[in-house]
């Protein structure tokens, strides 16, 4: 028996190995499949935060111990550690946002005895404020937070700066109190405006000049007085480019003045910002100081911005948010984005975004009306002052407000445009740029590229496949099939490079020839075939059936050469010697050298083999007894083909086209290189396009991780993934059913 012992352990060992292999392979196999599905879930994971609403989280709530009298101005620093309140007496109190204890108290340098009667805010992106005094003067201050890192910990030292000097600037030379004040400041000029005691408006234009050493500065001041036909002006704003002045009263009546010539302001428009009977309760600029946000007593907030109309700006109503039902008491714009926070008389706070028309959050913050609200520079916190003088800090998590279904796919009216449009413009040089994330032009570009490619590929591939599967001699087929397979393997970067650098100039130079070849090639082939038919049988016998393509190679080459050679005379004859110019001047069709025709040809080339192989397989696998039956009943081969074979194989052909479409939609390099990559919204064959995939390739390397742009590009990838996956799955199902059908036949 002992002789069997090792054998037993050996058997056990083998058994163990077998089980190990079984589980190992199972784990590995499942792991690989999971890894593949991970792609989908990861893309989804990155995309999902785009559609999340904002979250508001209540922070500390306190009263200022060293309470200033009436708070005129409220703001908070970048790290939400230091708040600032400015009061009537011109005192600035910096306080901790954790508990409200005072950190620094600065008396703003005012002329002796002067009191602050009005306060104007500059552009939201630059924290700056103008204090209008009761002696007709204005002082401009800017809170500055100096950051140092003693012991590796952040320490913020708040101070005040005087960007226009500590000397007050005269607006009302009579020295009467100012009722409202506005400020806009740029590198080289600043504009101050104020409403005087008797309703007139003072405008001061300051041309700032830096001194040579870069330390000091000086400015030249020019004052103008406007006598507006508007009572009781409460709101006064100067636009970001300092070219428009807006005046409004509590009834919503408003005036728009042109300030392009600061010495002679011109009344451009008189309008009502609110419907009759509705009070205007809050008026602020969005960042960039172009869009006006109008809050009213119904709780509606409307966006207005100037649109260029015959060279002159005209304020138009763009969109309205009707989400709050109590009077809007204050609106605080975000500093870097087109979003804002609005507080109402019921003590609620709404977080909005204009471009995407989203209400991201709406929550009660106090039981009493809100008096003032400020948003931190990173838009991650709001500081709320209620009517009883208590301050509340709210953390806001609002990463991607720019995106909504409408902003991705619908028409959006962007700032500075005269009408709503589909636009993709993800970044620009300036920081106060409004990103335009409409995927529609990209999706349209993708479909356009695919459409022109299919236009080229489908007829060629299907006809070629029909011939190869049904008529071609086996000997030739053994050569043709690998050639087409090689065609499929050609790197698309090469096709794209040839399309961009060789084909595009060639097509441009031979445009009439390209169109003529559509006619000349089929006609020439038919003519040749007919003449061939007429040749003596002995001569024809040299080329057996199924070798026609070989015969046609030189014919096609010659016909193509003929079409190209005819290109120039045709151009002379029909298009005044230059078809490009003719298109542009006579038909008004713009022409790009790298256009949809080039893409269609190059991408058609890339798609032909995909459609060809699958169609060919489908036709070749049609059971032979079907065709034999048909032929035996006296049908000609062509009749058999059209009535029996193609009909049977049509699901296969359909799936081939679908798979080809999937490939054309996702192709990147060809479109990247063969078009100008401009996101345009038209179907013209003479213009380029920008596709989803090319857009990803161009912009992904530059996008910041986890930014909205990054996630939108992931969304574009997800859209591509889902589209191709759906198309391919449909095609695959059809094919599987076809296979079952064949096997049952």
């Amino acid at each position, binding site marked *: 028996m002992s002789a069997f012992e090792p054998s037993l352990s050996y058997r056990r060992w083998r058994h163990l190995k077998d089980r190990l292999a079984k589980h190992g392979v199972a784990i590995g196999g499942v792991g690989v*499949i999971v890894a593949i599905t991970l792609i989908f879930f990861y893309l989804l994971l990155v995309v999902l935060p785009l559609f999340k609403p904002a979250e508001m989280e209540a922070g500390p709530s306190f009263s200022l111990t060293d309470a200033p009298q009436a708070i005129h101005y409220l703001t908070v620093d970048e790290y939400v550690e230091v708040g600032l309140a400015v009061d009537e007496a011109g005192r600035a109190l910096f306080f901790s946002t954790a508990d409200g204890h005072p950190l620094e108290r600065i008396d703003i340098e005012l002329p002796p005895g002067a009191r602050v009667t009005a306060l104007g805010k500059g552009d939201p992106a630059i924290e700056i404020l103008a204090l209008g005094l009761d002696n007709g003067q204005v002082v401009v201050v800017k809170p500055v937070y100096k950051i140092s890192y003693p012991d590796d910990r952040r320490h913020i030292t708040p101070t005040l700066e005087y960007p226009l000097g500590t000397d007050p600037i005269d607006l009302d030379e009579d020295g009467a109190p100012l009722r409202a004040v506005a400020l806009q400041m740029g590198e080289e000029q600043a504009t101050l405006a104020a409403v005087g005691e008797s309703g007139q408006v003072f405008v001061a234009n300051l041309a700032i000049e830096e001194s040579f050493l870069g330390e000091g500065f000086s400015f030249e001041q020019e004052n103008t007085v406007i006598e507006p036909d508007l009572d009781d002006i409460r709101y006064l704003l100067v636009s970001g480019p300092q070219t428009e002045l807006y005046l409004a009263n509590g009834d919503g009546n408003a005036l728009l003045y042109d300030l392009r010539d600061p010495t002679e302001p011109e009344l451009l428009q008189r309008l009502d910002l609110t419907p009759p009977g509705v009070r205007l309760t809050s008026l602020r600029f969005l960042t960039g100081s172009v869009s006006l946000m109008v809050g009213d007593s119904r709780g509606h907030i409307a966006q207005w911005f100037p649109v260029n109309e015959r060279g002159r700006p005209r304020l138009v109503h763009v969109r309205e948010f009707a989400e709050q039902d109590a009077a809007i008491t204050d609106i605080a714009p975000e500093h870097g984005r087109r979003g804002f926070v609005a507080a109402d008389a019921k003590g609620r706070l709404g977080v909005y975004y204009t471009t995407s028309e989203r209400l991201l959050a709406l929550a009660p913050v106090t039981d009493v009306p809100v008096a003032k609200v400020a948003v931190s520079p990173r838009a991650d916190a709001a500081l709320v002052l209620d009517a009883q003088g208590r301050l509340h800090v709210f953390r806001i998590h609002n990463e991607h407000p720019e995106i909504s279904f409408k902003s991705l796919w619908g028409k959006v009216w962007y700032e500075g445009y005269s009408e709503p449009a589909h636009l993709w413009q993800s970044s620009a040089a300036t920081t106060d740029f409004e990103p335009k994330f409409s995927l529609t032009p990209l999706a349209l570009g993708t479909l356009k590229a695919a459409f022109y490619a299919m236009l080229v590929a489908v007829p060629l591939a299907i006809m070629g496949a029909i011939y190869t599967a049904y008529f071609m001699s086996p000997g030739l087929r053994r050569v043709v099939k690998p050639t087409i397979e090689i065609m499929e393997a050609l790197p698309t970067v090469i096709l794209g490079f040839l399309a961009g650098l060789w084909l595009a100039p060639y097509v441009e130079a031979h445009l009439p020839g390209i169109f003529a070849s559509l006619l000349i090639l089929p006609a020439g082939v038919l003519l040749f075939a007919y003449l061939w038919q007429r040749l003596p049988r002995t001569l024809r016998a040299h080329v057996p059936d199924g070798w026609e393509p070989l015969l046609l190679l030189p014919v096609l080459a010659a016909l193509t050469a003929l079409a190209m050679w005819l290109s120039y005379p045709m151009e002379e004859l029909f298009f005044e010697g230059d078809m490009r110019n003719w298109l542009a001047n006579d038909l008004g069709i713009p022409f790009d050298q790298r256009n949809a025709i080039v893409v269609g040809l190059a991408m058609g080339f890339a798609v032909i083999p995909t459609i060809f192989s699958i169609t060919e397989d489908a036709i070749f696998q049609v059971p032979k007894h079907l065709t034999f039956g048909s032929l035996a009943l006296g049908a000609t081969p062509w009749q058999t083909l059209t009535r029996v074979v193609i009909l049977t194989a049509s699901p296969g052909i359909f799936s081939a086209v679908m798979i080809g479409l999937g490939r054309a939609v*996702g192709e990147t*390099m060809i479109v990247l290189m063969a078009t100008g990559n401009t996101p345009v919204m038209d179907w013209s064959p003479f213009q380029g396009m920008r596709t989803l995939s090319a857009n990803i390739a161009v912009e992904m390397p530059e996008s910041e991780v986890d930014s909205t742009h990054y996630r939108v590009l992931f969304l574009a990838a997800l859209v591509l993934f889902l589209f191709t996956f759906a198309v391919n799955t449909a095609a695959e199902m059809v094919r599987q059913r076809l296979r079952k059908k064949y096997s049952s036949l």
Partner: protein
Amino acid sequence: MNVRAWFKSGSPWVWLNAAAVSASILMVVGLLALIAARGLGHFWPHPVVAFTYHEGPDQSRRIIGEIQDDEELPASRLREAGYWLPDGTGERITRYLVKVGNRDVYGADFFSAASSNMGPWEYPRGIFVAERWEWGNFYGFLRQVKEAGHVVAEGDGAWTVLQERLSRVRELHDAIRRLEKDEIGAINYRMERLRLKERGYELDGELTPARKAEIEMERARLQREYETVQARLQTLYRDIRRDSFTAEVMTGQVVEIPLATVVRAYRPNAMGPFEKVGHYLAKLWEFVSEEPREANTEGGVFPAIFGTVMMVLIMSVFVTPMGIVAAVYLREYAKQGPLTRVIRISVNNLAGVPSIVYGVFGLGFFVYFLGGNIDRLFFPEALPSPTFGTPGILWASLTLALLTLPVVIVSTEEGLSRIPKSLREGSLALGATKAETLWRVVLPMASPALMTGLILAVARAAGEVAPLMLVGVVKLAPALPLDGNFPFLHLERKFMHLGFHIYDVGFQSPNVEAARPLVYATALLLVLVIVVLNLTAIQIRNRLREKYRSLET
């Protein structure tokens, strides 16, 4: 047979279908021929023409250069653009693109010349072409060769002297490059590792004075080493700058060019056929073995070839086991049913998912998520500059492995399914376990299918560019991913790739016109690699089919 009867017979449609096949074939063949002609023609020494060019009624200049391209266009278009054409010019004229070189002298490499304004073409034997490290080609007539400012040769003898001195300069140049690239590169690499080591100790709070002293000593040693190499470099630089030559260019101006800037010089018009072939082969060898010069528009593509091969190899290491295990699981172990069918369809469909989607996934998941975490865990000393948290060859290979996985799985599965059941049953009947059957019988028999899958995967990966643009490819990599510095294989490095090289040089380079021939050559190289790989795969597959056909019967 009359026309109507002929149409009724359906035969015209058959012919049209045949024409579709011919058109497809014509397109493939034409494309390959175009690339081959342009790519291979680039290295041939083109004759240099000299002609007088009339720019106005009595205004002319001499042009010397290579004819690079020509196009025919209506004369009216040139006239509209403000060109002067002599009277009696025909309606159509040819416009030549002449590469005149000497960018440092004239400011532009190219001159476009209308055939109507040209004087007769001449091919003076004395013209020589100097390829330079920068500023592109130089065309002119050699006048003198100088050593340290003194003329050593002049007139007819100057050419041989120039060639002799050029070979000396070339040797010096090689020596300089060896020093700069290898030795100084290695010293810099060790310096950087030293810095990281110090920072690592610092982060762990283990930077004891003893360790610090040790590091300082090592650093001083490297610094000394660096200084000696630097001193040697100085002498070499002095030597290489010694010689120069003067030459007359087409404007009649005589310019002096230091020999150190010249790669090679030849007189194309005076070359015999054998010399031309020699020159051609030398250029071809330079193309595949040298590094690029002049923002990739001249020189070779060796780093791109190397990068492509490395990436494909690393990818194969990942994709082969993954693909085989998944295929074996699906075909041999998983219970066949609706679930496996769904999986199979999904895997199949993944092959149709656009490659850029894989690139996006690779960037987000591999580079930022995995790479970022690896950096935080294992390379905290290098932060904030990322080690693996940035695109690199490892992530590119992994992304492409995922991209080509469906190809391998599908091909392997097909191979497994073709193996007759009888073989498996025979093995099991003889007492082998399932694992043994798989390992000893099934897999060896399916190995050609595995190979086919792998080759197709490699061919696809070699030609794929879009995802690589996101996960690791660069236009000019400072170092190869494999070198003499420990640990030799640098998976975190960025790399160059033939396909991306084509895109970059053809579309992003400042001097597209000058770079175009090189792009054709690169494209040809890539096409060759891929066509050879695919033909191999097709061959293997066909042989395999024959083999099993005989088994099945």
